[in-house]
């Protein structure tokens, strides 16, 4: 009888303690992220915040939100990324957008057809990988809408669920585990505009 009375009280107390601890962790993370963001916002460069829980990526400058992308689906592998500013070291894609080289004097020549020599949003890849510091890799792709896309996505899913865990096991044994984040956008243009926004050596934070 006594046990029946004590047990709910004990469980309630345990849950309250656990919730308080979670709250504190959440506040600590928030605090760390704001501190890191303040450091980033001190200079004029753009930076990004990838919010895993909120499923968003935000491009900012001086704390001002310039652009936001909603993530359709997000998946994680490996250890947590550090709560610190990470630099995008490389953008890797199958087809790299090429800048057009202007030939001096060419513009002066008469031309019957007008062709725009420019690198535009439509030229950006929609499927690519962002390689960040601290062995953090972010896979970006749009959700498949046609057969070609579904086949491509099948390859990606196979890699995500088979190839990457095995790779991670190997790296774990070598004491160099990776942090992997897989992001799918609702459409191609969002993935392309994120590629555009991720300028060379841009820094960012991953909120988890």
């Amino acid at each position, binding site marked *: 009888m006594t046990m029946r009375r004590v047990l709910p009280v004990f469980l309630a107390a345990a849950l309250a303690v656990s919730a308080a601890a979670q709250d504190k962790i959440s506040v*600590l993370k928030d605090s760390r992220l704001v501190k890191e963001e303040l450091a980033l916002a001190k200079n004029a460069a753009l930076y990004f915040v990838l919010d895993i829980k909120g499923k968003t990526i935000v491009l900012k400058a001086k704390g001002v939100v310039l652009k936001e992308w909603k993530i359709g689906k997000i998946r994680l592998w490996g250890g947590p990324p550090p709560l610190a500013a990470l630099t995008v070291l490389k953008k890797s894609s199958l087809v790299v957008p090429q800048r057009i080289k202007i030939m001096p004097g060419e513009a002066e020549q008469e031309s019957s057809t007008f062709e725009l020599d420019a690198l535009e949003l439509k030229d950006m890849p929609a499927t690519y990988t962002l390689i960040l510091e601290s062995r953090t890799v972010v896979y970006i792709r749009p959700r498949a809408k046609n057969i070609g896309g579904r086949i491509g996505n099948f390859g990606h899913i196979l890699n995500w669920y088979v190839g990457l865990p*095995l790779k991670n*096991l190997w790296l774990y044994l070598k004491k160099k585990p990776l942090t992997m984040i897989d992001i799918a956008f609702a459409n191609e243009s969002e993935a392309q505009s994120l590629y555009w*926004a991720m*300028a060379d050596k841009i820094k960012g934070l991953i909120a988890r």
Partner: protein
Amino acid sequence: MKTGKIWLLAGSLVAGGLIGLGTIAYYVSLPKALGWRTAAFEAAEESKSQSRLDAENSALKKKLAAMGPRGYAILIDSAENKLYLMKEGRLLREAVVSCGSGSILEDPGGQRKWIFDTPRGEFFVRYKLKDPDWVKPDWAFIEEGKVPPKNQADRVESGTLGDYALGFGDGYFIHGTLYTRLLGRNVTHGCVRVGDKDLEFIYQTAPVGTKIYIY
């Protein structure tokens, strides 16, 4: 028959091995990924009380918010070729513009190279000009296949930049254009071209010192 059994055994061993390996791989990767939200902090930080942490956070967030613009701000999306004139976070005007083409020009006679990107980051309106003249830089002549003149007066061109120009440093301007049909496309050498009516509104509204955010 015997060979068949050996193949079956070998196949089972390989399959079992792969499943085992996969299980270990998941065992290594999954709990870590699940623990992303509860990863521990340094003892010094954890020892702080909740109320103290809340107060610290609030102060930090205020500090961050204070870094943003007060009054007017110009936001330029170089991918979408859009300009947004804002006041206290409220949209006053949206304009279709033209930003940098991203093309490359190399000086055939030297070591110089230009990349025609619109610079990204935070800037501010340094000065405003009415009926501006364009002082053509070296690249403008080289692009035309000409030799840059030594005389400064030979570089001045009127009418190219439209009725107004807002300079934001390093020779970059928000200015007008003769090629209005190309608004919305990435065609410039780094400047931001704006249509006549939008440019007039921006010129008259945004004072010198207005923050410009280009992304």
